[in-house]
Structure formats: C-alpha cells, structure tokens
C-alpha cells in the first residue's frame, strides 16, 4: 500500500516529471494529431516516455490526459473522434503499465487535468455547469483508472480551476493538486484573467485543494521570485513546474535553449524558498528530471545531516 502523498510531501521534497507534449513531438506526433490520440495509436511510445521519467527518478508521473475533457477534445478534428472517458481511463492505464514495467510500483500516478480551452463570459461562452460536467466526466474516468492523486494544471482562470477542483472532489477522495499559470507583469504575478497568487491561495485552499502551485508560462529563471511570495501566503504544500527556456530553431526543429543543469540551478532556489515539490513543464525532458533528482537527493542529504 502506497503512503498518502500528502504525508510524504511533509517529510521530504517530491519530484514530479517533466513535459509530455514536447516529448511526444520529439517521438513524431504529427501536426494534425493531438497528444491524447497517442494513448490509442502509439500506447507503447507513451509508456516509454513515462518509463524514461521514472528511470530518471521522478516520484510522480502525470497521465497523458491534459486536454481530455469533452470540451477540449471537441475543439479538434482528431479529438472529436475520441471518447473522453476512454481517453482518460486509458491514460491512467498506460501510466500504471509504465510503473509495472519500470518495477517502480511505489511511485505515484497523477491524473492530469488541463483547462477546457474555452472562456467564461464576457470573454467566451463557457458556463460553470458545462465546465463542471466536463471535468467530472474526466475525473471519474481517471478515478476508475486508479490514479493516486489528481493534478489540475495550467489554469489561467481561477473560476475554471475551482470548477475542476469541485468536480474531482465530487467523485474522489484522493489528494488534489492545483497549479495556476501566472505571468510576470510590471505590477506582479497574474493569471490571464488577473487572478493573483494571494487570491488563488485563499480560494483554492478554502475549496479543499491539498497542494497548490504554479506551472507553465514562466521559465525557471522567471518563476524564482514567485516562490517566496507564494510561500508566505500559506502553510500548504507547494508544487512548482516551470518551463524550460524558450525554444530556438535549428534546422526547422524546436530546440530548448536552456540546459538541464541551468534549469536545476534555478530549481534549487525554489527548494531554498520552501517549495515542497518540483518538476518541469513545456520543453523539459527526462534529462531535466535526472538533474532534479540529483539536486533533491543532495538537498535532502544536507538537510538530514543538519538534523543528525
């Protein structure tokens, strides 16, 4: 029986995996394909990516289901052909298959939930009811797939994050992590909708999230300043997953400029600021995870030495 991740995270730093989309692109994801399609077309490749992250030392891997709400799927031709429930259950199945093959049954599978891609009024026509139903359908399927925790991520609208969180809590008692995506503006950190870290921490903790955090949009060097600020807002465990630096183009292919070592140096500052769990987002690979593993192990060793 696995220990509850909520307990683990109070004892030591936890490592989440890195980018899935950029890995799938490197593995040959076509221009008109969507990542979730590969759960059926190329399940072996999805499993291989999970295994690579596990081998690199990730404690938690994220299911390939970021865009697997009915709303998001129906926005693309490829997605329309997929059944949302099947996509999510399959995504969880592939992650557990990877755990088994990597002989790492004690690691964790996080059921990944991303935004619907639609906006609430006045920007768009999304309603709370429709968002909740879509998230509930996704969460139910991930729960059936047996995920150990849920990870609601890259949320640019607190209202939508709350709908996703409520939907998960309606169908599961598992821990839920919620990451908002903030941009750095002259007056501070804000989501696209203008939500601040303060407001996010207040509302998401009141709504019963177990982990809070920030991911995507900002690269590791630009997210550092957010860490102490977020840490000052709450005693809850915090999770940060920044992007690798912006991509450059060589021979028509996207290459991320930042090295895993540079990334890890920034992440060290997050750990020092009291962030409890870290990982990567867009552009990060198992090489980044490997560097973070080294970093965390070294960090933990120092902490243990200090205590003894």
């Amino acid at each position, binding site marked *: 029986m696995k220990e509850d991740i909520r307990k683990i995270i109070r004892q030591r730093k936890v490592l989440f995996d890195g980018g899935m989309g950029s890995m799938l692109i490197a593995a040959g994801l076509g*221009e008109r394909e969507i990542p979730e399609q590969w759960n059926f077309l190329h399940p072996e490749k999805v499993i291989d990516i999970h295994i690579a992250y596990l081998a690199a030392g990730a404690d938690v891997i994220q299911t390939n289901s970021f865009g697997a709400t009915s709303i998001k799927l129906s926005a693309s031709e490829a997605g329309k052909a997929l059944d949302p429930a099947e996509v999510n259950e399959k995504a969880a199945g592939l992650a557990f298959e990877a755990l088994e093959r990597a002989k790492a049954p004690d690691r964790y599978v996080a059921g990944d939930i991303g935004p619907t891609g639609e906006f609430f009024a*006045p920007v768009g026509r999304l309603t709370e009811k429709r968002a909740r139903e879509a998230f509930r359908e996704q969460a139910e399927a991930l729960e059936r797939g047996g995920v150990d925790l849920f990870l609601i991520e890259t949320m640019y609208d607190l209202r939508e994050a709350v709908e996703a969180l409520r939907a998960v809590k309606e169908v599961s008692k598992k821990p839920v992590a919620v990451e908002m995506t903030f941009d750095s503006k002259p007056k501070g950190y804000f989501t696209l909708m203008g939500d601040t870290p303060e407001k996010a921490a207040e509302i998401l903790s009141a709504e019963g999230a177990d982990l809070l955090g920030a991911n995507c949009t900002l690269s590791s060097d630009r997210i550092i300043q957010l860490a102490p600020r977020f840490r000052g807002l709450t005693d809850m465990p915090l999770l940060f997953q920044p992007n690798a630096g912006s991509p450059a*183009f060589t021979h028509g292919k996207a290459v991320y400029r930042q090295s895993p070592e540079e990334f890890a140096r920034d992440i060290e500052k997050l750990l020092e600021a009291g962030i409890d769990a870290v990982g990567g987002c867009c552009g990060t690979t198992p090489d980044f995870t490997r560097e973070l593993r080294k970093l965390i192990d070294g960090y933990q060793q120092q902490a243990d030495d200090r205590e003894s």
Partner: protein
Amino acid sequence: MKKHLEECAQSVLDGDQDKAEELAELTLKDSLPVLEVIEHGFVSGIREVGRLWEDGVLFLPELVMGAEAMKKAMEILQPALEASSEKQEKAGHVIIGTIEGDIHDIGKTLVATMLSANGFEITDLGADVPVADFVDEAEKKNADCIAISALLTTTMPGQKKVIDELENRSIRKKVRVLVGGAPCDEDWAEQIGADGYAGDAVAAVALVKRLLKKG
C-alpha cells in the same frame, strides 16, 4: 465637448457597451464632429485600456469588454463618418490567422479585435489556415500586413513558409509580416525574415502602426 470625449473614453475603459452606444447616438443627435469623437474619445479610451493591460492593471475580461464597447460605438459612428466629408485616416488592412496544423485561436482573435478597435480593416481567416490562403488573401485584398499566429513549436515553421511564398510570388516587399504566439520571440521573427514580433494584442497594435508608418 471635452466632457463628452472623456465620457466616451470612460465608457470604453469601463467596458460599458450600453453607455458607449448611448454616447455614440448622442454624438449624431447633437451633430458633434464624428471623427474627433472617435479619435479623441473612444480611441483614446481603448488606448488607455491597452496601456493598463500592458501594465498588468487590467486583464483579459476588461480588454475584451473594452474592445466590445468600442465596436458598438463604431457600428453607430462608422456609417455617419463615411457619409460625411470627414475622413478618418485609413489605418490599413491586415490579414490575420493561425497557421495550418494549429487550432489555437484565442490570441489571434484578441489581436484581431484590438486591431479592429484601433481602426484597422481586418480579414480574419480563422485557425488552421494553409500557407497559400494567407498570400492569396493578401493579394486579393491588397493588404498592408499579414499577421500569423502559431502556438506550437511544430507549427512555427509555417510562419516562415508564408514569407517564402510571398518571396516566390515576388510580393514580399509589398506587405509587412508580423508573427506572434507563445513560442515565438524577436529572435525567431528575425531568423525567418519577418518584419516584427508582438507578445500580446496591445503590442501587436503598436507594432502594426509602427510598421505601416515606416512602409
């Protein structure tokens, strides 16, 4: 008059569509100078919205509502303007779309809305637009500018293909090309020979204005 201009600007700043409509109608009823009301009233409001968005004071909902209020006022004032001898300086015609293989259209639509609110004529081709369509449309409309959005590192090369196609048809010099989207930056724009990069809708408006002034 000064008060009227301020109210017009404020209605856009507040994103108050009803108020913007009411003020536009009042402009016609009282036979106020339409062009001046547009330029020093509503447009100055939308500029302020843009400035506050860049500073991180206003956010997406306010930006969209401001642009909508602006649009409502323009729907009323535009016909009157065209009928009168007053001529608004033609801002230019922009062809805009998200490149083929890419269905992300939020950013692109915002840029189109803001350009339109700033008086540009817009042809929005939508998302997943083939390379040739950008160029065909630019030729057909005799456009001043093509704005190409790409949100994926896999679709970004399509932006270069549009530029190549303009070269092929020997019309590259006739039209300015700007690129945008999360993975793009100034280096990328330079690398593919685009005329500029904009990071958000407000920057895009400023960039198009600057490019068309130079051209």
